[in-house]
């Protein structure tokens, strides 16, 4: 249940998997993303509502073949340049995208967590997303005849999240902005949770989400594992690091140096297609 991070990633994240590393600004599983790069995973389908710096890094390292998402940016700073380079120039490899809105992605996770094949929402009508994304369809209300948007359930092979605490049985507790993490874990076939600490007893906290151990495949203790994002009650967001990423990510060579220095990973091999 409680395993070192490298073992957790090795056991649970496989080449070709659909992988969701979720976190809505808060509690982003950055250390786990770096371990995925370090282990050289390939052909991943990455899923996330808000792919940000860590996905920029995983994409830039050439681990991903596809991205399913609704907003890809460096929050509060600007664009993701490795993501851009992959989409605009196919570097280091082409990145296929499946693009939704937040409301659509949130409902896709809800459907996945609920064991139904699709979700219904008021969304997308009139937007050009409808033409580009085959996973946006419509469904008719059998009572009123209204037409609403339908999106298919998301069921990742593995969801990775970061949380404040777990107990020794593997029950996981997170609080603050809890985003979509509960649904992302419940929707997944497997789950890996990095935590700030393991405690004997999870004292209840206002606003907590508790994930019972039976929906958690493995827990890894990684203090600071969400940096440069933050862990409510543990450490603050390192806004300067997000701003600093902009310069690194704009330049392929600077990114290669970052990979070598920070991750100990080789520079990505360009041109390796899906």
């Amino acid at each position, binding site marked *: 249940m409680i395993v070192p991070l490298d073992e957790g990633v090795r056991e649970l994240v496989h080449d070709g998997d659909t992988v969701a590393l979720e976190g*809505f*600004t*808060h509690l982003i599983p950055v250390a786990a993303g770096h371990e995925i790069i370090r282990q050289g995973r390939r052909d991943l389908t990455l899923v996330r*509502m*808000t792919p940000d710096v860590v996905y920029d890094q995983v994409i830039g390292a050439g681990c991903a073949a596809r991205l399913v*998402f*609704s*907003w*890809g*940016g460096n*929050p*509060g700073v600007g*664009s*993701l340049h490795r*993501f*851009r380079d992959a*989409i*605009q120039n196919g570097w280091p490899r082409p990145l296929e995208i499946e*693009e*939704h*809105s*937040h*409301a659509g992605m*949130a*409902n896709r*996770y*809800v459907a996945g967590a609920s064991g139904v094949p699709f979700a219904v*929402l*008021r*969304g*997308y*009508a*009139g*937007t*050009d*997303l409808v033409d*580009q994304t085959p996973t946006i369809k419509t469904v008719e209300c059998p009572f009123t005849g*209204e*037409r609403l948007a339908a999106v298919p359930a998301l069921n990742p092979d593995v969801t990775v999240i970061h949380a404040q605490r777990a107990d020794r049985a593997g029950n996981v507790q997170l609080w*603050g*902005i*809890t*985003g*979509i993490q*509960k*649904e992302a874990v419940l929707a997944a076939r497997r789950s890996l949770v990095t935590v700030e600490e393991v405690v004997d007893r999870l004292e209840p906290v206002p*606003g907590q*989400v508790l994930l019972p151990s039976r929906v958690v495949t493995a827990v890894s203790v990684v203090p600071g594992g969400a940096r440069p994002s*933050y862990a*409510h009650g543990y450490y*603050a*967001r390192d*806004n300067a690091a*997000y701003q600093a990423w902009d310069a690194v990510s704009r330049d392929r060579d600077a990114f290669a140096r970052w990979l070598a220095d920070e991750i100990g990973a080789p520079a990505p091999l360009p041109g390796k297609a899906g």
Partner: protein
Amino acid sequence: MTTGYTSDEIMTVAAARCLTSQTACFVGIGLPSTAANLAVRTHAPGLWMIYESGTLGTRPDTLPLSIGDGVLAETADTVVSVPEVFNYWLQPGRIDVGFLGAAQIDRYANINTTVIGDYTDPKVRLPGAGGAPEIAASCREVVVIVRQSRRAFVERVDFVTSVGHGAGPGDRERLGLRGAGPTRVITDLGVLEPDPATRELTLVQVHPGVSAEDARAATGWDLAVAPDLATTPEPTPEELKVLRSLTGADGV
């Protein structure tokens, strides 16, 4: 304190003035967040701010850099999950004002934040939709804040990320969009509003020192100008003081 101000500052002040107390406002990060936080500290103390991270009724004491900074959770009436903020709060039409930015905006206030150029072979790939399509669909009205230029104000957006007034009158109704759509576009030059009949964005107000011709020159279509063109009242010293304390431009 100086009585001068930048064009971004008067844009933010003009946007803040769109918000009234008791209003529920779905706040985007960046300029919308600055404007909403200015409003709540000046004329709209009862403004109820929602960020899409799930923080309902938040009152951050500093300006958040991201949509999910810790200060938003700490000062919120309650924090809900992301599905809940979209399904239980935005979708049923509980939010009065949606505050959006744009990379491109067109004659009918349709908004592009997805891509410049062709979708499958983009010139510039932008972050994408986020919450915007449903904010634009479901809020009772939408206020857009965007710097005015020919690059941003285009005849036709490269990609409709969020529907404004579609191709004109009746389009929102036809699409089943329940909110009124963009009712005001606040720029660094002035304020545009959709013409009640044609839905076409029309210059109704300019900031002090800006002419209608300046605005027309910064617009990629033949911009209509209201006959009774107003001028934005100067920012008050109080507005500027609060704004600068928020943005750190006061050097404190």
